[in-house]
């Protein structure tokens, strides 16, 4: 097969990681919210807010690190609204999630229009940290071991969350908050606190994913640039059945679909890009058809907790 040349594979894998990291962070974030019983439809908005603030701060300070922190903060602003409205006040999670996404789309597009529509500033590419030795491996070295530090951090988060879920009281409390909040309450744990904390942390993770898109992926902020990737994160979380490692697997798979466009162009295959750009969404539908039924969601997902209510 002449298609699978070294250039093609490298382009595919490099692209899969670049496109997969935002999906991974979105999926990990959604998984956290869902574990705690909050169906977080607002992550698309959190991601966009993270992308905007990440870009803004990275551009103003000329520091990718501060940009990432700004992205975390940007995601958390939207998440705080979600926690207030859905956890504290018990409003409908789906309606609020959609509202927050639409609100964030509008607000970031407006801010972008006011600030950058004349100049379209671009960020310089962030520093790459090559791991000595490993980065010399052909194909894999370039894709995995010669990346921005944020990539290593995101991959490490998979292990961190797997540990937290399995080995801490916090992991137990999260699962109880999603499965039977009344049991958690009667054990003397504040359900509101657990759920609000999970939603805020989700905002941070997803916001970081958005900032990654703007700072590492594109080097620029464009309105609506997340283009439904937050929603793919929701699908990833649903299919991962509470296991962070499966979020990683799904993120790389969908990331590969997203990067296939570039890779096929590198390989000189002549397929209309519109067809290739449909791939990730077709893949989502395919995966859902085959695996969607096995999704195992917490039983109190989407339901506000009110003490004493039956």
């Amino acid at each position, binding site marked *: 097969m002449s298609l699978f040349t070294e250039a093609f594979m490298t382009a595919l894998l490099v692209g899969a990681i670049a496109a997969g990291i935002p999906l991974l962070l979105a999926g990990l974030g959604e998984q956290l919210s869902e574990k705690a019983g909050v169906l977080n439809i607002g992550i698309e908005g959190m991601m966009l807010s993270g992308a905007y603030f990440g870009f803004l701060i990275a551009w103003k300070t000329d520091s990718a690190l501060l940009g990432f922190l700004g992205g975390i903060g940007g995601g958390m602003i939207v998440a705080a609204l979600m926690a207030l409205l859905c956890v504290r006040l018990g409003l409908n999670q789906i309606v609020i999630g959609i509202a927050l996404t639409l609100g964030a789309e509008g607000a970031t597009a407006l801010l972008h229009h006011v600030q950058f529509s004349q100049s379209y500033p671009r960020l310089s590419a962030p520093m790459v940290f090559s791991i000595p030795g490993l980065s010399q491996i052909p194909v894999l070295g370039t894709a995995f071991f010669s990346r921005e530090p944020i990539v290593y951090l995101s991959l490490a988060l998979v292990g961190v969350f797997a540990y937290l879920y399995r*080995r*801490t*009281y*916090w992991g*137990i*409390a999260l*699962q*109880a908050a999603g*499965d*039977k909040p*009344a*049991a*958690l*309450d*009667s*054990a*003397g*744990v504040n359900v509101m606190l657990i759920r609000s904390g999970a939603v805020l942390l989700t905002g941070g993770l997803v916001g970081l994913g958005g900032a990654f898109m703007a700072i590492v992926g594109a080097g620029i902020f464009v309105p609506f640039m997340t283009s439904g990737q937050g929603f793919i994160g929701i699908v990833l979380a649903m299919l991962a059945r509470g296991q962070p490692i499966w979020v990683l697997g799904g993120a790389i798979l969908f990331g590969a679909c997203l990067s296939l466009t570039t890779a096929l162009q590198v390989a000189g295959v002549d397929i209309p890009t519109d067809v290739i750009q449909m791939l990730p969404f077709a893949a989502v539908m395919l995966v859902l058809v085959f695996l969607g039924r096995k999704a195992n969601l*917490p*039983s109190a997902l989407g339901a506000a907790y009110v*003490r*004493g209510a039956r």
Partner: protein
Amino acid sequence: MPSQPIVSLKGVTKRFPGIVANDTVSIDFFPGEVHVLLGENGAGKSTLVSMLSGLQQPDDGEIHIDGARKAIQSPHHALSVGIGTVFQHSMLVPSLTLVDNVNLGGRWWQNPDRPAIAARMSETARSIGVDVTPMAVTSSLSLGEQQQAEIVRALMRGSRFLILDEATAMLTPKDAEKLGLLMRRLVSQGLAVIFITHKLNEAVAYGDRISVLRLGKKVGAIAPDQLKSLGPERVTQEIVRLMFGHSEDAAPSAPAEAMPQQNADLGGAVLEILALEVDDSAVPVSGVELKIRAGEIVGVAGIDGNGQKQLAEALAGQRPVRNGRIYLDGLPIEDMSVGDRRKRGLRYVTDDRLGEGTVGAFPVSINLLLKQIGDAPFWRSGLESPALIAANARRQVVEFDIRTPSIETPAGKLSGGNIQKLLLARELTGSARAVIFAKPTYGLDLQNIAASRRRIREAADSGKAVLVFSTELDELIELSNRIAVMSQGRIVGIVDNDQSARQRIGEMMSGVAK
């Protein structure tokens, strides 16, 4: 007997909109005793439990713990003063192991020492003579095993006052018996246990002291020495008297009317039920045989939750029949839909007036035709005939004295009594042949109780066959020609409504009579 109660309720009152759930209830709970709380649904048992476990706060009155006044602010606070509650519906997280259910509430960043906690759990379980599998995932265990684990967990958290809320309601008889023995062992170790149940035989078998609630009030109590000296049968009779008997303040008794004459000119059998079986996970119904003649009222007595609802719904067509026959005017109807049964003259007045009886947001006029939507003459080729619908509504509002601002008022805005009148109007007009009433006066005030009972009587007088399910024995004795007693999904006996009926029904309900 220990001198000081662990927990005392002193004049505790709890109000909800439109209802007084607990009305100046005073009860003392002593260590070393199984204290049984008895009462029908709605008697206020669950509210009492919510207040003791910190889910709700009393509006009036005080809760004393070890002699000192305490306000129990939250479930956590209840635990810290030694009150552990095992709710009717399991409070274990199904997807976690038993150990992790015990672990709920540890410091968040710490790594729980699961083997050590499992060992402690097994040890606690052994000390009260039960066996648990700490590493088992909760959802893989039977309800009985889950309940034992909940009791073990409560003890591990230092509970010395254990509330078992309708603990046997979901258990198999064998598991229920195990739980009874476990309660005895717990109190022998000095704990106080509150056991809430519907079942009189369990109360007598496992209780040291019994308090009876009725309509939010404590209507009586049986002390330990009384319980011992009276013997099971006399105790049961006393409880039945307290729960169902006359008492001026608690029982709304409608104006006395003459008892229906026995075997007055009753017609032929209209509704006949043969060897009926109905599936249900909690209370399967089996072997029901009943024959109701035209003009006859047959009452079905029994403590709530003994299959009455299942039987009523199966007759109405809302629940599939597993086996057996239902004849209406000699024709089998058990495979017919709700609509077809209604067309043949079978009517069902549900006790779930807001849930399945009416659509709260629809106007009174449409609710009056809820089971005929789309039928002529009110709908023609799929289009409403507003004039006819309104005329029908106006007629029924007058005829059944439904107090509503207008026929366009949403039904959900009416009072309970008027919603019941609306249901009666809907079910009793037209060509009804047999009418089934489920708890027809449940939750109504005196006047509406009297009105409902009058309608039931009228239905029978006009030659319909009437079946009345009720937990109010007085009501059945006032209305019925014959009374059947239901227990655990079976009809355990049918008596003619004569002078000795009350006594015999009481015996059958409590399982004393053979």
